C-alpha cells in the first residue's frame, strides 16, 4: 500500500500528489441541490457533470441530479451560448424545475463565456428562474465553489424590501444533511426563526418511499432566498466557507453578519448557542443543557483513553479546525492539521488554536496534500487519523486507526445522515474516536491483558 512513498521529504512546487481538495463545480452543484425544486446545471463538457454527479452520489448514496451543456469542440471554439440556451429550454420542458442554477467549468471560464448575457438572452418560462455562479476550477477548491453558488443565488434573488422579517439567515458551511438537521433542531429549540441556505436535508438524505421523485421535499425555497435580504442578522458557520456569502449579503442587502467556527465539540457549540441566545433573547432550554451535560460527562468518563493521544486531521478547512478543537477538548494532541483548500486563514486559525491550548510541536498546513501528510506520519507517527475516505490508504499503510469524518466518505454508509455538529454530534464523534482507540487496544493486547470492562 503506497509502497513508493519515500520517507525523505522533498520540496514540491508543481506536482500535486494525492490531493485534499477538488474543484469548484462539485461544491457549486452540492449547494444548488440544497435549493427546493432546483436543477443544477454544469456549463461545459459533459464529463465534468458526470464526474460530479458520480462523486456526490457516492458520498450521499442518494441521486444527485444535474444537467450539462454538453460542449463539443464546436462550442469550445464558438462559445457555449447556444448550448446553454438549448439546455435551458430542454430542462424546463422535460424536468420542470422552478429554478436552474448554472455553474461554470474551467472550459467555459477559459473561453470567457458571458453567462450574464446568455441568461438575459435565454427564453425563460414565466415564473421560472435561472441563476449562475462563476466557478473556474483553477481557483480555490470545492469549498470555494460551494460559497460561490450561495453567493450567486443571493446575488440574483435576495432583496432588501425595507421590511425586516425577524429571521436569522444561517449559512451552515460545507456539511452533511445530518448536520443541517441538527442545526435546525437547535435553532428551533432556541426559538429562532431562520432561513438556512443551502439546506440539503430531505434532499440528499430523503426517505425511501417506493417512488422516485426528481425533486424531494427539502431545500431552501426561492421565496426564502429572496427574503434573506430582509433578515435581521446572518450567521456564517465555518468562517472560511461561509464568510464570503455573509459578506455579499451584507453588501447587497445590508444584513449585518457574524461569523463562527463550525459548531463541533463543546466550546464551539456553546458559541453557536450563545449567538442564538443573543439573537432570540430566549433562555436556553433544558433539552440543550441536558445534551451538553451528557457530552461533558462522556468526555470526563473516557478521558484516560483519549488523553495525550496524537491525531492527524485532514479535509476541508473549517471541518478540520473544528474537529481539532474537539480533539483538544478530549485531551488529544492534534499533531498534524492539513487541508487542500488554499488560503492563509487556515494556518493562522490553527496556530491560534495550538497557542490557546498550549500545544507545542503541532503542525498545520493549508494548500497541502495527503502525500505530504503521509510523509510526515512516516517520520513521526500518530495514534489516530480523522478525515475522509482517501486517507484510508495511509491508515492501512501505516497501520493507524481511522475515524471517518468530513468529505468525501465514499466507502461507508450512514455518515451523512448523522451530525458531527452540536452536542449530539459531539457524542457521536466521541463514540467514534473512543471506539477506534479502544478497538485498537483490544486488538493489540496480549490475551492475558484483554479487559472485559474498560
Amino acid at each position: 500500500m503506497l509502497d513508493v512513498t519515500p520517507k525523505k521529504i522533498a520540496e514540491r512546487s508543481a506536482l500535486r500528489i494525492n490531493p485534499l481538495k477538488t474543484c469548484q463545480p462539485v461544491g457549486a452543484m452540492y449547494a444548488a441541490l440544497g435549493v427546493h425544486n432546483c436543477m443544477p446545471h454544469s456549463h461545459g463538457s459533459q464529463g465534468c457533470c458526470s464526474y460530479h454527479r458520480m462523486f456526490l452520489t457516492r458520498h450521499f448514496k442518494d441521486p444527485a441530479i444535474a444537467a450539462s451543456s454538453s460542449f463539443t469542440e464546436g462550442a469550445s471554439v464558438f462559445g457555449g451560448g447556444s448550448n446553454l440556451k438549448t439546455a435551458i429550454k430542454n430542462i424546463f420542458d422535460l424536468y420542470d424545475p422552478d429554478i436552474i442554477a448554472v455553474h461554470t467549468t474551467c472550459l467555459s471560464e477559459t473561453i470567457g463565456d458571458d453567462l450574464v448575457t446568455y441568461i438575459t438572452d435565454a427564453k425563460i418560462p414565466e415564473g421560472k428562474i435561472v441563476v449562475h455562479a462563476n466557478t473556474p476550477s483553477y481557483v480555490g477548491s470545492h469549498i470555494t465553489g460551494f460559497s460561490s453558488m450561495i453567493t450567486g443565488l443571493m446575488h440574483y434573488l435576495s432583496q432588501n424590501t425595507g421590511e425586516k422579517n425577524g429571521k436569522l439567515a444561517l449559512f451552515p458551511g460545507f456539511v452533511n444533511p445530518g448536520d443541517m438537521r441538527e442545526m435546525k433542531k437547535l435553532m428551533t429549540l432556541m426559538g429562532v426563526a431562520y432561513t438556512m441556505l443551502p439546506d440539503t436535508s430531505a434532499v440528499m438524505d430523503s426517505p425511501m418511499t417506493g417512488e422516485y421523485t426528481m425533486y424531494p421535499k427539502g431545500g431552501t425555497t426561492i421565496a426564502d432566498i429572496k427574503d434573506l435580504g430582509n433578515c435581521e442578522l446572518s450567521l456564517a458557520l465555518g468562517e472560511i466557507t461561509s464568510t464570503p456569502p455573509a459578506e455579499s449579503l451584507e453588501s447587497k442587502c445590508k444584513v449585518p453578519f457574524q461569523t463562527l467556527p463550525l459548531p463541533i465539540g463543546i466550546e464551539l457549540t456553546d458559541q453557536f448557542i450563545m449567538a442564538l441566545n443573543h439573537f432570540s433573547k430566549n433562555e436556553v432550554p433544558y433539552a440543550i443543557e441536558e445534551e451538553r451535560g451528557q457530552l461533558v460527562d462522556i468526555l470526563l468518563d473516557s478521558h484516560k483513553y483519549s488523553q495525550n493521544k496524537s491525531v492527524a486531521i485532514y479535509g476541508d478547512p473549517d471541518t478540520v479546525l473544528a474537529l481539532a478543537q474537539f480533539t483538544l477538548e478530549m485531551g488529544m494532541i492534534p499533531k498534524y492539521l492539513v487541508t487542500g483548500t488554499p488560503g492563509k486563514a487556515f494556518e493562522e486559525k490553527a496556530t491560534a488554536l495550538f497557542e490557546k491550548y498550549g500545544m507545542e510541536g503541532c503542525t498545520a498546513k493549508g494548500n497541502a496534500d495527503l502525500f505530504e501528510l503521509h510523509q510526515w506520519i512516516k517520520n513521526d507517527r500518530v495514534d489516530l487519523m480523522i478525515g475522509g475516505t482517501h486517507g484510508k490508504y495511509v491508515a492501512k499503510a501505516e497501520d493507524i486507526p481511522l475515524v471517518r469524518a468530513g468529505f468525501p466518505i465514499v466507502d461507508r454508509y450512514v455518515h451523512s445522515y448523522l451530525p458531527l455538529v452540536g452536542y449530539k454530534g459531539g457524542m457521536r464523534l466521541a463514540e467514534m474516536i473512543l471506539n477506534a482507540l479502544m478497538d485498537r487496544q483490544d486488538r493489540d493486547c496480549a490475551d492475558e491483558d484483554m479487559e472485559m470492562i474498560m
Partner: protein
Amino acid sequence: MDSREKVLDKYSSKIYKNRKEHVIQIEAGEPNVIAADTRAIPGIMTNRGCCYAGCKGVVIGPLKDVVQIVHGPIGCSYYAWGTRRNKGKGDENTKNFLEYCFSTDMQETDIVFGGEKKLKKAIKEAVEIFDPACIMIASTCPVGLIGDDIHAVAAEAEEMYNIKVVSFSCEGYKGVSQSGGHHIANNGLMKNVIGTGNAEHVNYSINLLGEYNIGGDGWEICRVLKRIGYNVVSVMTGDGSYAEIKNAHTADLNLVQCHRSINYIAEMLKTKYGTEWLKVNFIGIEGIKQSLRDVAAFFNDPALTAKTEAVIADEEDEIKEAISEYKAKLEGKTASIYVGGSRTHHYINLLKSLGVEVILAGYEFAHRDDYEGRQVLPLKMDADSKNIESITVEKDPDKYRTFHSEERIQELKDAGLPIESYDGLWADIADNAMITDDYNQFETEEFLKLLKPDIFFSGIKDKYIVQRSGVPSRQLHSYDYSGPYAGFKGALNFARDVTLAVNTPAFNLVQAPWKSEPTLIGNLGGME
C-alpha cells in the same frame, strides 16, 4: 400507443426528432438500424463522460508502473483517482502507482501565462521522487484551449531523463463521449509503447485486449488461460504495465474483449506486426466456453485442444450445482442493462443462462457497429468524429510475423472463427426488446414505469433513482464493489449478487404499516 411511442411522445418536437433515431424496438427478421455516437443534447441528463474520462479514466489509468500526471486544474485528476476499480498489483520488480493521484493543479496564473513550465517542473519532481520507468501526461479542457504543447514537453523530458514519456491530448470537449478518449489513448500506446520492447517470442502467446480488470476480471480470465497453457504477454490495460505492453508485438494472437475501446489497436497490430485478432467474450458460461474453443481452434494443437476441454469440464463442474440453484431463484425474471460500449452485449448470455431475459438495453457511448455488427463498417464520419486523431501504421519489416498463412486464416474464417469480426447486440438480444442509445434519466424513469424490469443494471448515477422506484439495481461499471464477474467463477459471483439483489428483504419494508392499516380501531354498535 406502444411503450416506445409513449416515451417519445412526451418530448418536444426538436428532441423527438433527435431521440426517435436512438430509441427502437427490435423487430424479428428486420434489419434493425439505430443512431449512435452522435452528440448528447444539452440539458438532457446523459450518463456519458468525456474524452479525458475515456483516455485517462479507462484506458491508460490501469497501467500500474506509470506515473500519470494529469495536466490541468485539480478536479479531473481527483475524480479518476481510485474510482474505476481497475485492480493491479505491484511486485518486487514493479513499482505500483495505482494508489496515487498526480496533477499539476493548475492555477489562474498558469491559465493566463501558460502551464508548460509547471508541467516541466512537475515531471522533474516526479522523476526525483519516484524514478519511474515511464510517465504519461493527460491534458484536460483548459490545456487544449490555452495551447500548452504537452507533446513537446514530453519529448524534451524523455530525452532529459532517459525514460519513456508519453503525452495524450485528450481534452474533455473532444468527440461526443468517452469513446474518443479510448481512441486517443490506444493511438498513443501504439505509437509510443507497443513494439519498443525486446522480449523473445514464446509459443502460444496472447495479448488480452480491451480488458480492464474491473473487480479482478482480468485475473480470473488469465488464470483460466494460463491453466490451459497460454502465455499471456500483456493485458491492455487491466493490471497492465508499460513493461509488458512494450512487448505486445511478440504475441501470436490478440484476444479482444471490449472491442469498442480497442478494436483500432487490434487492427493496427495486425497491419504492423501481422498478429491476428479474435473477438472473445469471457462473461457468461456459454461465452467463455465458446471463446476458449475458438482460441484452441486458432492454434489447432491437439494437446492444447484436449487441455481446453479438460479445463472447461473441470471449471464448469465446479460451479454447475450452485449456478442451477441460483437459476431456480431467478428463472423468468426480466432485466434492463445500460452500460458502456460492449458490456451490455457481454452480459446477455450470462443472464440468459440464469433464466433472465433482457427486455431493455442500451449503450452509453457505443457506435452503430456495437449494435448492428461489424458489417456496417465503415461508418460515415461526421464533424465530431473527424476531430479524433486517426493514425495509420505500416508493416514493421523486422517484427512482422504471421502465425498462419493467409489461406489458413481464410479457412478458419470460413469455419466460423470470429477472426477480425464481431456481432453486434442484435445477435443476442430478444425480439421485441427496447433499445435506447445514450439513454437519459427521463427515458430511464419512463421505461421503468412501462416495462417494469425485475432488475436494472447500470452505473452509480442511476442506481439510487432506480432503487427508489422499488426496482433492485446493480452497478455494472463497478460491480457494486463485488466481482470478478468474468470467467466461470465470476459467473457464479454474478448469479449470487443478482439473487441477493432481487431478494433484498428491505424491499418488503418500504411501506409503513400505518399507510395500509386504519388508525382507529373500534367495534360496531358496542359489540365485542
